[in-house]
């Protein structure tokens, strides 16, 4: 996605630049703007800059000039790169930085190709690779990404990305066939292929692999397995790949106990203890992971050899309810269930699980009509509720449940949703972008975290009330909330990750063709 820039005659008259020292940036001549036109550039956990991708003017009969504008973490302009690519049919899918090179992943819709380009830190091009064979599943995934919707990390893979592996290169993922299997190809910074890991073509299962982390010598991922395309029974598998050789060193299902089914939300490696840590939710034995309402969440620890060395369950109704703040209890009793957006481990050894409540609001007539074979545009409504942070100490004790109330917002769900179970609905709502959760920020030391969500009335619109909520927590043991009033006269307002302690707000004014970007220091 991109912005479109007008070649402004106004440049003839603009003889002075805005103050160079402010942590703000105003750009004129922006004719349209999508949220994905600006993307943060990460080095490790922290935002170190921003990339703006946009279409400029025509380069020749077939091509346009596309602009890659680079800004540092303080919104200072660094440089720009202009590339000539097919007119109006070229989009940036993702940008990635691995500590020594930038990788840009483009979709050339005209020629139905994927293109990768890498640049060194001096922004000199160092690699190019064109991918001709795009599977149907790849196209479907890209299409979802291009609409600005989220691709789910666990159940459906990680969308189409170039996954950065510090010091080594980038891993490109793809889906084979109709998402029957997956393939991962590791490239060095010059885009020479180094290794390939793929699902077994002869396997009877449908498999996706979503990479989650490059840590120590491993590239980690979560593999989801199911019997068929329409199957709603998922099995979660922990996968660790040797980053240098591409050899799978760990590919193990989360153990399913005799009393419950397990799903996997987070799989990490702790270099200090040389342990793999798995976190997920558990379900009744007869229920389906991800599909039915979970009973709680669990934590399991494994040695590098895959031996289970510890684990604990935390039931929503027991352990969690026991220390749940009083103001949170009514919502839990109001049929709300939790969707776990992110699970992180702090440098203090504590695990933090960020969840958001949601529920389906029954529409009796709609459900009845659907049951009778009738068709309606939308027969069910989803409702998004409050935010939670669960804190688990290194001894696996649930030490805090933090509750953050916000205005409920409504979501329109596709027909038939009334019959879906809670788990799958959560994933649909996530994919539709219905949740208010935006992203989580963390510093390189993993000592400070900041969860960003947006609170606005989806019925009356963003113009009436729009608040960016920030929940901060970390090693200092303090939980702080900071709310930024974002109600403004802009056509669109977007919030982006920023350097630790800040968020970046972009306001686009359609009439003025102006984009204002500013860093906001959080009051945490």
């Amino acid at each position, binding site marked *: 996605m991109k912005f479109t820039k007008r070649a402004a005659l106004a440049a003839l008259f603009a003889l002075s630049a805005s103050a160079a*020292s402010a942590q703000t940036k105003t750009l004129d001549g922006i004719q349209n703007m999508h949220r994905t036109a600006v993307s943060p550039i990460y080095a490790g956990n922290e935002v170190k800059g921003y990339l703006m991708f946009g279409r400029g003017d*025509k*380069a020749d009969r077939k091509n346009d*000039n596309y602009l890659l504008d680079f800004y*540092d973490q303080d919104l200072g302009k660094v440089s720009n790169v202009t590339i000539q690519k097919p007119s109006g049919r070229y989009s940036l899918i993702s940008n990635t930085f691995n500590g020594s090179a930038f990788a840009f992943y483009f979709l050339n819709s005209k020629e139905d190709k994927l293109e990768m380009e890498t640049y060194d*830190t001096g922004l000199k091009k160092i690699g190019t690779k064109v991918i001709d064979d795009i599977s149907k599943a790849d196209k479907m995934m890209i299409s979802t990404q291009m609409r600005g919707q989220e691709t789910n990390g666990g159940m459906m893979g990680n969308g189409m990305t170039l996954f950065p592996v510090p010091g080594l290169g980038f891993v490109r993922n793809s889906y084979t066939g109709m998402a029957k299997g997956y393939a991962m190809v590791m490239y060095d910074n010059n885009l020479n292929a180094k290794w390939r890991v793929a699902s077994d073509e002869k396997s009877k299962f449908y498999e996706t692999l979503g990479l989650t982390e490059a840590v120590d010598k491993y590239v980690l991922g979560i593999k989801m397995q199911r019997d068929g395309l329409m199957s709603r029974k998922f099995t979660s598998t922990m996968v660790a790949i040797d980053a240098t050789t591409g050899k799978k060193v760990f590919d193990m299902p989360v153990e399913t106990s005799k009393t419950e089914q397990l799903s996997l939300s987070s799989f990490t490696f702790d270099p200090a203890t040389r342990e793999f840590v798995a976190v997920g939710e558990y379900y009744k034995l007869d229920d389906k992971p991800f599909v039915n309402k979970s009973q709680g969440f669990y934590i399991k620890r494994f040695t590098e050899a895959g031996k289970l060395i510890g684990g604990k369950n935390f039931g929503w109704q027991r352990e969690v309810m026991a220390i749940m703040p009083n103001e949170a209890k009514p919502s839990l009793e109001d049929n709300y269930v939790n969707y776990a957006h992110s699970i992180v481990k702090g440098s203090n050894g504590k695990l933090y699980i960020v969840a958001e409540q949601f529920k389906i609001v029954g529409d009796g007539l709609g459900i009845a009509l659907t049951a009778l074979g009738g068709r309606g545009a939308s027969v069910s409504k989803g409702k998004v509720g409050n935010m939670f942070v669960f804190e688990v100490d290194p001894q696996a004790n649930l030490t805090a449940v933090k509750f953050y109330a916000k205005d409920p917002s409504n979501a329109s769900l596709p027909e038939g949703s009334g019959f879906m179970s809670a788990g799958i609905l959560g994933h649909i709502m996530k994919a539709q972008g219905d949740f208010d959760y935006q992203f989580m920020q963390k510093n390189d030391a993993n000592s400070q975290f900041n969860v960003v969500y947006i609170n606005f009335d989806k019925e009356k619109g963003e113009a009436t009330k729009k608040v960016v909520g920030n929940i901060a927590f970390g090693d200092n043991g303090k939980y702080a909330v900071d709310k930024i009033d974002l109600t403004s006269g802009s056509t669109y307002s977007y919030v982006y990750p920023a350097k630790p302690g800040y968020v970046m707000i972009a306001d686009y004014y359609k009439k003025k063709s102006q984009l204002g970007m500013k860093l906001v220091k*959080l009051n945490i």
Partner: protein
Amino acid sequence: MFRLLCLLIIGVLGANGALAQDAAYLPYYSRDTTQLYQLAVAQRNDVKTHLVVPKTGSSEYREHYKKVVKEASDDVFNSIRYSALLDPVVEPFVQQVFARILKANPQLPTARLVLTRNPEPNAHAVGNGTVMLNLGLLPRLENESQLAFILCHELAHVACRHMENGLQERLTTLHSKELKREFRRIINSEYNIGSQIKALALGFSLNNSYHHRRFERQADSLGYVLLTHTAYEAPQAYRALELLDTIDEPENPAPLALPSYFSCADFPRAFGNAPAKPTSIFTVKAAEKTVLESTDTLKSHPDCAKRMRFVQTLAHDQVAKGPQPTSPPDFARIRSLSRLEVVQSWFDYDCYDHALFEALQLLPQQPNSPFLRSVVLLSLFELRQHLQDHTYTEVVSNISTHQPANFNALLRTLHDLRYEDFTGLSTCFAQASAPAAAMPADEYTLAARYATTVLATEATSATAKGLRDQYQKQYAGGRFDKLLFPVTPAKAMRR
């Protein structure tokens, strides 16, 4: 040599006298803005009258000219209405220097001087014969003769009609058949329009800069002649340019004594630990700034070194070089008061980082100044307010290599502060060699006392309310009334 020694002694005595005298100085403020308004309106009208839209040229050209005149007159109005300084000390002084120049050069067209509170060291002439002198320039000069040369230079621009000629030249070029043809060619060329327009704009700007440099050379030349007609020392013209050449460098590069002011038993804080600006992931060599992007300072616009060589030739090498003897007492006082007014200006422009920096730089010389101490506390108050309102980055600058190292060090600290830190900072500062409270408290002291109380206990405390009532009773409509006690929209409606 003896003369120099005498000058030095007189200068030092004068400076000390000025310091003692200025310890209790409070920047000028008047609730009555009638005079400012009248002056602003008169100047706006004068610019409109002076810049007559030519009867020749295309309709587009005339419309553009009208637009520029409107913008210029509005700019003049706003500059004067919101920043002209009509104080009883500094303004009369600079007016006196200006009057002496005019008297010694009767051939000059009608001209007037407006002193603005702008803290940036600069001056410029407006098309109607008005010279705008920024307050920020005064502390950077060493004597009256250097100020006289700056004013002579601006008057030379007026006498040579540089603004009018420059405007006409620019607009004539912009609306020329050649440029229009080129522009049409670019638009019709269909491809790479953006880069072609950019190149065209750059060429236009370079051409404009060439004319600008030519004008500056003329202004230096005539300005020098005008100065020689006065009783001021003409050799100081060269020294004035020398000072402008170093205008971007800090006057005092010493690090601020932050720990001595802001760390105490109640709030022990190590100030050297503020995280440095992270190294950029980019290794792109900073692009040469084009004329379009460069920031305009007296050093760079145009090149001072060339101007110095030119003036040296004009003066047949009779020039004053290097630091000059300490200013005569009158000018030393003007410098000193201007410096304080500059601190206030930064504060009034919502540049609390600069206000804090300037105040902390001056405090070692004037530790008992209620004004400087109050500015520190009020700046902390405002910074916390902006942090709370999520507008902190709009009032705290980015760290930049273009700024002095000591200012960047302060910025690192400011970027690292959390909401609750401001309480500790203000507590320590209030404790650090606090002077005996003045009776009755002046406006600054009272406002700072309120700010300190709010930083420590929030605005709803009984003490804060008491101080608020006291301020509003003693200084109703005062300098800090709207800033410290803003009227909420709901209350404003009721009123």
